[in-house]
């Protein structure tokens, strides 16, 4: 495929792997890929076992489904149970178990839950079904937030009174800060997400670098991107530097997508938000602004207080922080499998446990 095959070239990959192997490491390089798509790309290409032993790749919290708190899943389930409500969302979210149910289970019981490929599809469904309240469950990082903001604006322009968004969007840089504040995490560098960075720009990591002296490299998703990004991080670690570098220049600029950021800012405002495994992180979520209140499902429906239950023994939180690998969890492969997932890291296509299960 044009523009992709170039980044999968076996010869170049071998050269990059060889140059990493030739390096004389005097300490471990523990690199965290924050993004779930990176985790899957690493597994799919079998990259991990090609690296020298001292370079360790640690999977971080960058799967939007995995970090969605149980209470948000429970609220989505509650919304799906309301008469006259149609839930629209991305496929990944369907099977994630909440305290006692999932959207998938609710659909099998008769709830109207539909998979969409984009938030504008949800607006179209609302337009075609004026008799139903269509709620888009918005999960994702800065990559998806602009499209959801655009959906709100479109629904407003079309005068739709039956469309709203249940926003569980999250922002990545605050999570990186929370990770670095945690005592049990020992990492030497971040492989920063390509998708999110197209929106927030490489500049978003400057503050992390300045405050925590940790190298950050924005990296693409093809094997050569990852190899080159890892090489750039190792170079920084060896020379004692800490700066923001951008391997993914073909998609990511320093300042990012200014129009998309403006759109997020117009519709959403930052709010303290609960992350699974990381707890409440200040100003790490996105709430719909007062001005667009009518499109906020939280305002449109008076949701009852929900009693959240976590699955006993589920260690997704530690997996998300990178302090535990999935095989170390007592449930992994035994009672927690993709067919019957106990935690979100197993159910999501980009979840760390699911990737370990499927690829190794």
């Amino acid at each position, binding site marked *: *495929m044009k523009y992709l095959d170039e980044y999968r070239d076996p010869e170049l990959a071998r050269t990059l792997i060889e140059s990493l192997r030739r390096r004389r490491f005097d300490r471990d390089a523990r690199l965290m890929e924050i993004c779930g798509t990176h985790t899957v790309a690493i597994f799919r290409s079998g990259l991990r076992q090609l690296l020298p032993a001292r370079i360790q790749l640690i999977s971080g919290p960058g799967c939007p489904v995995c970090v969605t708190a149980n209470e948000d899943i429970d609220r989505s389930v509650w919304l799906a149970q309301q008469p006259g409500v149609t839930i629209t969302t991305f496929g*990944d979210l369907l099977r994630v178990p909440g305290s006692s149910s999932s959207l998938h289970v609710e659909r099998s019981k008769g709830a109207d839950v539909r998979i969409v490929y984009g938030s504008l599809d949800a607006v179209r469904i609302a337009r075609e079904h004026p008799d139903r309240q269509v709620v888009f469950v918005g999960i994702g990082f800065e990559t998806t937030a602009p499209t959801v903001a655009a959906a709100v604006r479109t629904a407003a322009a079309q005068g739709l009174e039956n469309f709203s968004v249940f926003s569980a969007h999250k922002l990545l840089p605050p999570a990186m800060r929370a990770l670095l504040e945690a005592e049990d995490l020992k990492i030497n560098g971040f492989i920063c997400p390509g998708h999110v960075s197209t929106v927030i720009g490489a500049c978003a990591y400057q503050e992390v670098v300045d405050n925590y002296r940790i190298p950050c490299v924005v990296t693409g998703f093809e094997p050569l991107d990852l190899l080159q990004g890892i090489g750039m991080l190792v170079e920084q670690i060896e020379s004692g530097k800490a700066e923001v570098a951008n391997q993914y220049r073909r998609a990511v600029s320093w300042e990012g997508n200014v129009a998309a950021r403006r759109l997020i800012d117009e519709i959403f405002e930052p709010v303290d938000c609960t992350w699974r495994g990381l707890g409440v992180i200040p100003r790490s979520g996105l709430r719909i602004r007062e001005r667009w209140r009518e499109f906020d499902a939280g305002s449109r429906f008076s949701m009852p207080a929900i009693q959240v239950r976590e699955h006993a023994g589920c260690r997704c939180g530690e997996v998300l922080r990178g302090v535990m690998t999935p095989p170390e969890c007592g449930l992994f492969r035994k009672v927690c499998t993709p067919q019957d997932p106990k935690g979100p890291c197993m159910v999501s296509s980009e979840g760390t446990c699911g990737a370990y299960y499927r690829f190794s």
Partner: protein
Amino acid sequence: MQAKTIQLDQGSGGRATHELVGELFIRAFRNDFLLELNDSALVNVENGRIALTTDSYVVDPIVFPGGNIGSLAVHGTVNDLCMRGAKPLYLTVGFILEEGLSIETLEQVVEAMSCAAREAGVLIVAGDTKVVPRGKADKVFINTSGIGVVPAGIQVAGQNARAGDAVLINGSIGDHGMAVLCKREGLAFENEIRSDSASLNGLVWKMLDAFPGIHVLRDPTRGGVATTLNEIAAQSDVGVRLFEEALPIREDVAGACEILGLDPLYVANEGKVLAIVPPEGAETALAAMREHPLGKDARRIGEVVADDPGRVFMRTRIGGHRLVDMLRGEQLPRIC
């Protein structure tokens, strides 16, 4: 047949049913066996073992680029027979029709079935029609059963793969699943992705004529190449190693999969055959495949190995190594 849509009484067994059967099904599938209009067809078979199969088709949408539910039903059943080395001979067909289905659509489906059966050289010799109230079925469901004969000397089965065998495929993977998905979801790409739906008996017989010692033939339908190879690995208690760089994937299919976060290895095919062939016959079988229009892009995509019995691995393009697990649940498009 006055009405332009299917009515409940056309499934009642009375005059309306007879009219539908006579004016549509018999006309389309016409042959001496069917024209007898008996409760079952008495058919002649050659000497050899009889292969029997049945399958139901509930695809949505019922019409997609490259075919419709009718042609798919014939192709699928013909392929299930020839994957055991059988020569498909006769099919039966059961229709479950939703009240209100347009007769024009049904005609289109039946015409495609008739055409597919003719091309595959099989006869549709018995059938059944039921009509269910609106909302109790989705437009049309089709069940097809098939019967064929396996000549002496052919031993094709999922248990027969042996270490050292070559894994061959007749062309690109994922075309059918992506064609249906794109049509269903209204996803438009620059070029329309077309299903590969086709009857493979001609191709399979060319392969078996060239090298009768083929160990396993399997069509990688739902669950895709990955799931099918896992099934074979388990049945034969062997390992399978795929070569990533050898996997044939059309550019448009690969692009659509990239965008949706799907893996083409798990996407359904309806005109593909995976052949597990002993090393001494691999080149002969491959050459025979390439001589047939449905096998012109055939290639070797992997090998059967003794280690890791029951599992499928892939040697990645960059020289890595990873497990290729069976599809679990359904592939769902990712968020970002």
